[in-house]
């Protein structure tokens, strides 16, 4: 049934443009590739709403990532419904506090608040649950199971799905698949040049392709672009490197903590191995690479400066845009794995291959419980992610909107609308789809005071990257801080919240 529904929606999305393109795409060129796509919140449906005299206040991220589509869809929503929409742009680091301060003071200066999906535990008591009529819409039924889970808390959806995120590997296909390069690499190193299966292989290749002009453009290229700047989402990059060594499918019951005892796992040998690799990575990033934030990473890989990158979709989409110098020269693959994985129950290494996808947190948005225009707010969000807008947004890397619907995994969308090479479109959608199907996934930490935990990881790992502490010392410091946070917040509160995430990881939710 679900497959049929997905196929139906996919067909509608692919073939419907013919019927609707003329009517709405003239007024709204953003959707010129598809025209309006029928649905509960399509252009057609929204044009029948009348919100004249009402004002919707939105706090979103700075332009362009998520801020630009928010503003664009606000403008479209105004034209269609007669509403007035006021959009405030806020830097990523301040999104949490900008909403949290008025929330805690019992105010609702914004009807719609954008943030990250891992804010959910702290924000949920201030957000209105998504009403049933949206939950039952065909668009919502199209959202993947994992992203329904990410947007919900114990079965109640508080965050309206507008984006789907996961970390995966991006590589230069024109190098890795190049027979001449493969020959040269083999001759020089004795190893095969291929999409790296492990982080050790990743490091070997990145080191080899570091600091020389391997694409003949007259400029030096480097091994890898990674988010290493302290407090700029670096902790997520560290978790991506850790999952291979520390997420063992044979030891359910918690990746970040042991759920029973709430003892942090963060300083076990699996995580230490990952941090040791990461410290080594400082040798094969571009000059200044240890100060790269997400924007730098996107610019670096998307601009053709490095062989590899891993993190959110944006760098890949940027590389595949029409104005990119490396369009159709990149590939997507799962995060590298490891030849051994730590077993925290037996306290020993298991010498077998392990790979685990990281369904990382991404953009999320909710409607304030105290908002006086909740209906309009949910209509706006539904319109934001309607079929036409969503497909158009997916094609623009800087928008930060990534696949989160089952229909997004149809390679034809990327081939027909965005001009992707079929082989690349297939590898991209297959990579994302495989993550959805995996039974060994890690989801973001979503416990009370999540920022305290992630901030401690950022501080500890950045000390290791800067050489201030050894990987073991740094993670011991993080573990000590985590224990102190658990004690401050209350073991039971953290444990109860963490149990929900563990259920998702252990495929029980």
């Amino acid at each position, binding site marked *: 049934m679900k497959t049929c529904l997905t196929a139906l929606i996919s067909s509608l999305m692919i073939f419907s443009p013919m019927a609707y393109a003329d009517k709405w795409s003239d007024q709204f060129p953003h959707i010129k590739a598809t025209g309006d796509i029928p649905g509960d919140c399509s252009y057609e449906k929204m044009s029948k709403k009348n919100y004249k005299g009402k004002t919707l206040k939105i706090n979103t991220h700075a332009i362009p990532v998520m801020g630009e589509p928010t503003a664009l869809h606000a403008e479209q929503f105004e034209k269609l419904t007669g509403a007035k929409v006021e959009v405030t742009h806020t830097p990523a680091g301040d999104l949490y506090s900008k909403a949290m301060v008025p929330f805690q003071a019992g105010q609702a200066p914004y009807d719609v608040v954008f943030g990250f999906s891992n804010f959910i535990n702290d924000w949920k008591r201030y957000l209105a649950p998504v009403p049933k009529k949206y939950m039952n819409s065909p668009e919502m039924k199209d959202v993947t199971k994992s992203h329904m889970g990410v947007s919900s808390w114990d079965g109640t959806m508080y965050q309206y799905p507008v984006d789907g995120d996961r970390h995966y590997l991006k590589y230069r296909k024109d190098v890795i698949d190049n027979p001449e390069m493969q020959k040269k690499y083999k001759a020089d190193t004795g190893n095969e040049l291929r999409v790296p299966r492990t982080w050790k292989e990743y490091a070997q290749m990145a080191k080899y392709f570091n600091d020389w002009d391997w694409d003949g453009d007259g400029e030096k290229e*480097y091994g890898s672009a990674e988010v290493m700047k302290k407090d700029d989402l670096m902790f997520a990059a560290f978790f991506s490197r850790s999952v291979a060594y520390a997420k063992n499918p044979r030891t359910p019951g918690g990746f970040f903590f042991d759920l029973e005892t709430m003892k942090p796992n963060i300083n076990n040998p699996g995580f230490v191995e990952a941090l040791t690799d990461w410290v080594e990575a400082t040798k094969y990033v571009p000059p*200044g690479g*240890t100060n790269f934030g997400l924007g730098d990473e996107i610019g670096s890989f998307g601009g053709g400066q490095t062989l590899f990158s891993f993190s959110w979709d944006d760098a890949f989409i940027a590389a595949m845009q029409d104005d990119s110098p490396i369009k159709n020269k990149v590939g997507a693959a799962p995060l590298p794995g490891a030849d051994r994985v730590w077993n925290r129950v037996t306290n020993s290494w298991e010498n077998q291959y392990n790979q685990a996808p990281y369904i990382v947190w991404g953009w999320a948005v909710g409607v304030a419980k105290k908002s006086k225009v909740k209906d309009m707010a949910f209509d706006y969000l539904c319109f934001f992610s309607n079929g036409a807008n969503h497909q158009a947004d997916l094609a623009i890397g800087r928008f930060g909107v990534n696949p989160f619907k089952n229909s997004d995994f149809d390679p034809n969308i990327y081939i027909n609308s965005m001009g992707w090479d079929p082989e690349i479109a297939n590898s991209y959608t297959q990579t994302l789809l495989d993550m959805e199907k995996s039974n060994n996934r890690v989801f973001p930490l979503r416990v009370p005071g999540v920022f305290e935990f992630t901030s401690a990881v950022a501080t500890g790992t950045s000390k290791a990257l800067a050489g201030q502490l050894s990987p073991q010392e740094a993670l011991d410091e993080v573990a000590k801080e985590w224990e102190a946070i658990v004690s401050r917040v209350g073991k039971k509160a953290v444990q109860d919240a963490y149990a929900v995430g563990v259920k998702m990881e252990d495929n029980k939710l």
Partner: protein
Amino acid sequence: MNFKHKYFFLFPGLFVLIGILIFPIIFVVRLSLSGWNSYNPGLDYIGFENYIRLFTDDPRFWESFFRLSFLSVTTVILQYVIGFALAHMVWKDIKFKRFFRVLFLVPMMTTPVIMTVIWRTFFHESLGPVNDLLSVFGVAPKWLTDPVIAKFTVIIVEVWQWTPFMFLLLLAGLLSLPKEPFLAAAIDGASPVRKFIYVTFPLMAPISIGAIIIRLIEASKIMDTVYVLTSGGPGTSTETSSFYIFIKGLREFQMGYAASMSFTYLIIMIISLTIIAKVLTKVLLKE
């Protein structure tokens, strides 16, 4: 005649003082005695728990404080020396004096955050123009990724941004100096160097003390430069007290604990700046 009604005229000022100074300080003190955070919002009472944590279990705060002391003292000394030199230069009759006076003020007129973004682009180690130029000489300093050099990068940006402020104060001071001592020195045949050491510098001492103290107060709040340039990194090598308090308060939402740090920091700054002012007065105004 009854002049009691004169006190009514004090009320507007008093209200403002209470509203923007007294109330926030009292609120911060009360907040510091609470455990207000993201999961437990509210002014509960936890006694001196936050202060005990700060003094016994948070070396990072003290490290950031000593780092801040180094950064602020170094930047203010450099700003004073350069600002004095520039003010002295345009105090004299030189060509295009007015042009230079305006030119030297330009950095101060720019928005600090925007200028820091531009500096970050300049110092970008793979895309920035600074290392591009330096590569001609075969060097490529790690401006933002070496723990030691990053401190000096912060200092460079702070000095560039705020030297004009020092320049402005010192130029105003120079322009207000009496002419007689300089005439007397000229009649005695004093060289320019001796004139500076024995006349200009001593006469400028009171203004210098004021300028240094004002800049020290401002420099001790270094935040935007660090936030944009390095986010306190690499590691914690450029993390200052205000940036650390910002992280704890507005990133991690540990409001109660951040308030205790803010209040402690305020007390330390009041004491240390009072001592510095006394020492400067004693040293520079000894005669």
